[in-house]
């Protein structure tokens, strides 16, 4: 099964509530997948800075070493926020690759959840209610975000196997379904120089879209290509720096409901996830069509 949610705000006055709204949506869908949960939030961005979200199974051992590791590599740390097993490190955007390399050399058990100017990703095994409370997601503000509660099928129940998957700067994806040609596509993307952290099919879908957007396609065009190249069952919700997209495979057996008002666009695996959104009674509510690309940009 799996449950997925997404919320793209049009009305700035809702931004302080993004974390709360998205958390409630995700917790409602707990019974669609109780293995692991994760949320990506697009929050504030500081000019010239990039945020790196990292995770450790031993945060007390690893996190105190982040600052000194980066300083030793000549990378000043603009800020470091610790939240349970996750840390968000802000550094100069042009030092992002160097920072990843330095951290991976010095702290091999540190895992990168995602990176970007605005995006932060929090994901762990466990129930959505526990995951959102461990990372204080309800207090987070932002412009848009996506979330996932997992019932694992294609790879192990681990932090890295949880969604959202991020394979490019400020890009992330959540997935309900299972891909059947992910091994082939992973091989092709590896040949192009991409690297993979897991055996998971969804990571391949995320990396595929990253590769397509790297060719200059916008999110909508990348999703259109996915219809030709990805085989299997999928309902995807995708986030980019300023965009939000939805795509269902041609069979469309994985459920999806969307709602739009003047204030937001929302996605839920089920209508239950949307019932607490402001003004839902008067929202346009519809089921996204199969093989049809939906995307919104700020």
């Amino acid at each position, binding site marked *: 099964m799996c449950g997925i949610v997404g919320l793209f705000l049009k009305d700035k006055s809702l931004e302080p509530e993004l974390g709360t709204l998205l958390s409630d949506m995700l917790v409602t869908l707990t019974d669609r997948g109780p293995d692991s949960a994760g949320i990506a939030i697009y929050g504030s961005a500081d000019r010239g800075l990039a945020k790196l979200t990292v995770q450790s199974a031993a945060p007390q051992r690893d996190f105190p070493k982040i600052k000194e590791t980066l300083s030793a590599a000549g990378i000043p740390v603009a800020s470091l926020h610790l939240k349970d097993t996750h840390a968000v490190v802000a550094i100069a955007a042009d030092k992002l690759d160097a920072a990843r390399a330095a951290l991976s050399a010095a702290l091999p058990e540190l895992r990168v959840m995602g990176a970007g100017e605005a995006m932060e990703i929090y994901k762990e095994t466990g129930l959505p209610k526990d995951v959102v409370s461990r990372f204080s997601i309800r207090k987070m503000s932002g412009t848009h975000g996506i979330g996932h509660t997992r019932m694992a099928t294609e790879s192990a129940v681990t932090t890295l196997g949880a969604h959202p998957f991020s394979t490019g700067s400020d890009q992330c994806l959540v997935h309900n379904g299972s891909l059947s040609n992910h091994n082939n596509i992973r091989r092709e993307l590896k040949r192009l120089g991409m690297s993979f952290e897991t055996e998971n099919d969804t990571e391949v879908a995320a990396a595929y879209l990253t590769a397509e957007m790297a060719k200059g396609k916008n999110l909508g065009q990348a999703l259109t290509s996915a219809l030709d190249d990805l085989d299997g069952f999928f309902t995807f919700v995708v986030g980019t720096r300023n965009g939000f997209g939805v795509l269902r495979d*041609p*069979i*469309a*057996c994985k*459920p999806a*409901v969307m709602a739009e008002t003047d204030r937001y666009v929302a996605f839920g695996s*089920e*209508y*239950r*996830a*949307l*019932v607490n959104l402001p003004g839902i009674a008067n929202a346009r*509510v*519809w*089921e996204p*069509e*199969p093989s049809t690309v939906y995307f919104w940009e700020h």
Partner: protein
Amino acid sequence: MPVINLLETPLRELNAKLHNLPQGSNETAFEVVNPRGSHAVAVGVDAPLTIDVRGSVGYYCAGMNDGGTITVHGSAGPGVAENMMSGTVVIEGDASQYAGATGRGGLLVIKGNAASRCGISMKGIDIVVGGNIGHMSAFMGQSGNLVVLGDAGDALGDSLYEARLFVRGSVKSLGSDCIEKEMRPEHLGLLRGLLDKAGMDARPEEFKRYGSARKLYNFNIDNAEAY
């Protein structure tokens, strides 16, 4: 009329109440409020009850209905009225995938659109849809009638047995072994009756009839590609 508020009453309590009414009970009309997308609202009703659900429901609403008149004043999630035996289910809004799947009897009216696989494996149910239906609708439909005032998606009536399909708008594509058939007077009469029962304002003459070409009933090696 008893009003059941699903914010306060657990779903199982609602359904148990509907199942346990003594035969001949005078309590035959119920209103359900705040369904908020709940699953399995009013499943397994087996008495001539009238149930009005105020709001949208999730999976499997009114499943296995046998004699109830259940109206959803909102939209319905996947599998509404699945395996209905008899009675009437009305959806004022839209319905998600596989509405009326495997239905044996009764009438399902969807005033808005229905998504994919509407009436899949239908076995005697009548389904009337005011809007459009999605792909693979009436797949392997065995008997009953599917009436669509709008358009039908891809692969309508694939591997159809004896269900009758009436579509007023366009059909994106027909599935294997589904063909357009002549609309004879008895079909116009049947359609008139279904439209009247469903309270739909449409003229039977505007519809086309589709049914099985009956080429895939038994295995034939010459048809191997179509199976």
